[in-house]
C-alpha cells in the first residue's frame, strides 16, 4: 500500500509539473507493473477527481474558468465518459494497453507542441473586468496588469465532437482527458490556452464523477487502493504545484514528454 501511495505521490508531482495531471502517468505505470487495465482505470479516475478538486480554488481565485463553456462542453464529455466506462468492461486488456500507449504518445505530442498566441490584448478592453460574459460563450482574461484579452468560443459543434472523444478515452482508460480538451478548446474553438486549461480542469472533475458512478456500480473500484491513490495524489499534486512555480515550464514539459514516450514503448512491448 505504501508503494501505491509513493507511486501516486510521484506521478501526481510529475504530472502536475507538466500540467497534465497525475493519472496520465499513473494508469500506464500501474498497467506496466501488472495491474489489469480495467482495475487501473478507476484508480486513475480517482486521481483525476482529486486533482480537479485540488486545482479548483486556485482557478476560481484567478477568475480564468469559463463555467458556461465548461458546462456546455461537458455534456458531450460526460456522455462519452459513461459510454467509455461501460465499454471498459468488455474491451480486452491488450486493446486497453494499446489504447493507453496511444494516449501516452498523444499526450506527449500535445506537451511538446508549441502554441502561438491566437488571442491578443486589445486596448479598448483595457478597463474591462476579466471573466465570462453572462449569456454567452465569450469573455475576457487578464494577460498582464494592463492588458485584457477578449475571446469568444468558435466552432462549438466541432468542439463537442472532440469532447465526446475525450470522454470515451477518459472512461475507457481512466485518464483525465485534459490533454485532448485543452488543445481542442484552444486550437479549434480559439479559447486562450490559460482559460482552456482552467476550464478543462473544471470539466475533468465532472467527467470523473460520471465515470466513478459507473465504476462503482460495476464494482470495479478497489477502495483501499483508491484511498492510497488519493492520499498520495493530493499531497503530490500540492507539492508539484508549489515546485512548478520555481521550475522552467519548458524543462518540465520536456521531462514529462520523455517519461510518457518511455511508458508508451513499455506498454506496446508488454501488450
Amino acid at each position, binding site marked *: *500500500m505504501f508503494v501505491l501511495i509513493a507511486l501516486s505521490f510521484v506521478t501526481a508531482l510529475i504530472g502536475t509539473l507538466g500540467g497534465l495531471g497525475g493519472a496520465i502517468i499513473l494508469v500506464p505505470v500501474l498497467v506496466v507493473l501488472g495491474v489489469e487495465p480495467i482495475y487501473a482505470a478507476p484508480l486513475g479516475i*480517482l486521481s483525476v477527481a*482529486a486533482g*480537479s*478538486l*485540488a486545482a*479548483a*480554488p486556485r482557478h*476560481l*481565485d484567478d477568475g480564468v474558468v469559463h463555467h*458556461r463553456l465548461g*458546462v*456546455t462542453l461537458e455534456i458531450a464529455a*460526460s456522455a462519452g465518459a*459513461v459510454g467509455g*466506462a*461501460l465499454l471498459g468492461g468488455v474491451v480486452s486488456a491488450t486493446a486497453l494497453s494499446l489504447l493507453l500507449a496511444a494516449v501516452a504518445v498523444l499526450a506527449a505530442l500535445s506537451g511538446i507542441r508549441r502554441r502561438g498566441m491566437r488571442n491578443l490584448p*486589445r486596448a*479598448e*478592453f*483595457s*478597463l*474591462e*473586468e*476579466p471573466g465570462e*460574459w*453572462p*449569456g*454567452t*460563450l*465569450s469573455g475576457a482574461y*487578464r494577460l498582464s*496588469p*494592463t492588458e485584457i484579452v*477578449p475571446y*469568444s*468560443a*468558435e466552432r462549438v*459543434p466541432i468542439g463537442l465532437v472532440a469532447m465526446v472523444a475525450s470522454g470515451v478515452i477518459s472512461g475507457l482508460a481512466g485518464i483525465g482527458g485534459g490533454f485532448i480538451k485543452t488543445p481542442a478548446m484552444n486550437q479549434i474553438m480559439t479559447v486562450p490556452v490559460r482559460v482552456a486549461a482552467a476550464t478543462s480542469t*473544471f470539466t475533468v*472533475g*465532472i467527467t*470523473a*464523477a*460520471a465515470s*466513478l*458512478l*459507473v465504476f*462503482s*456500480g*460495476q464494482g470495479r*473500484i478497489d*477502495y*483501499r487502493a*483508491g*484511498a*492510497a491513490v*488519493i*492520499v498520495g495524489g*493530493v499531497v503530490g499534486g500540492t507539492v508539484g504545484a508549489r515546485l512548478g512555480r520555481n521550475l522552467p515550464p519548458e524543462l518540465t514539459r520536456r521531462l514529462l514528454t520523455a517519461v510518457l514516450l518511455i511508458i508508451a514503448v513499455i506498454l506496446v512491448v508488454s501488450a
Partner: protein
Amino acid sequence: MTGADAGADGPADPDDGSWTTTHRDEMSEIEAEADAQRSDLDQLAGLGPKGDPDRRRANAGTVRPGDIVSAGPAPNHRIGRQRFLVVYLRVALVLAFLVGVVELVIPDEHRDRAGMVMVIVFVVAPAGRVLWLMVRWLRLGDWRFALIGLTLLAVVCTGLIVK
C-alpha cells in the same frame, strides 16, 4: 452555437414584468453585476449583446475619457463573488483526503462504506458546483445556461443507472 449567437438575447430584462416586486430589490445587485459584465465595447468585437453604453460603463466601475487612470490593474469586482464555491471545494478536498486516510487505517469490514463516502464526495463536489452555478444563472435570468447545467447533471446521473 457560437459565442455571438449565444449572446444574442442575453439575460432577461428586469422590466419585462417577469419578476415580482419582492424579487426586484434583491435582484438589483445581480442586475448591476450582469450589466457590469457586458461591455459596450463587445459590439466592436461582435462578441456580446447590445445595450446602453453609458449605463454599463457606470455600473462596471470603469473610467470615462479624461479621468485619471493609474498604471495598476483595474479593480476586479468579481473577486469574492465565488468565495462560497472556493470554500465549498476546499472543504470537499479536505474531506476526501481525510476519508482516504481513514480508509487506509480502518478494518476491512468498514472499508467499503468509507469507500462509498469517498466516491460520494468526488461526485457531489462537482455536481454541487454545477448546481450552484445553475442557481446563480437562473437568478441572473440566464435560463438557457441553467438548462444546459440541468442537462449535464442528468447525463452524469445516468452513470447511476447503467452498469
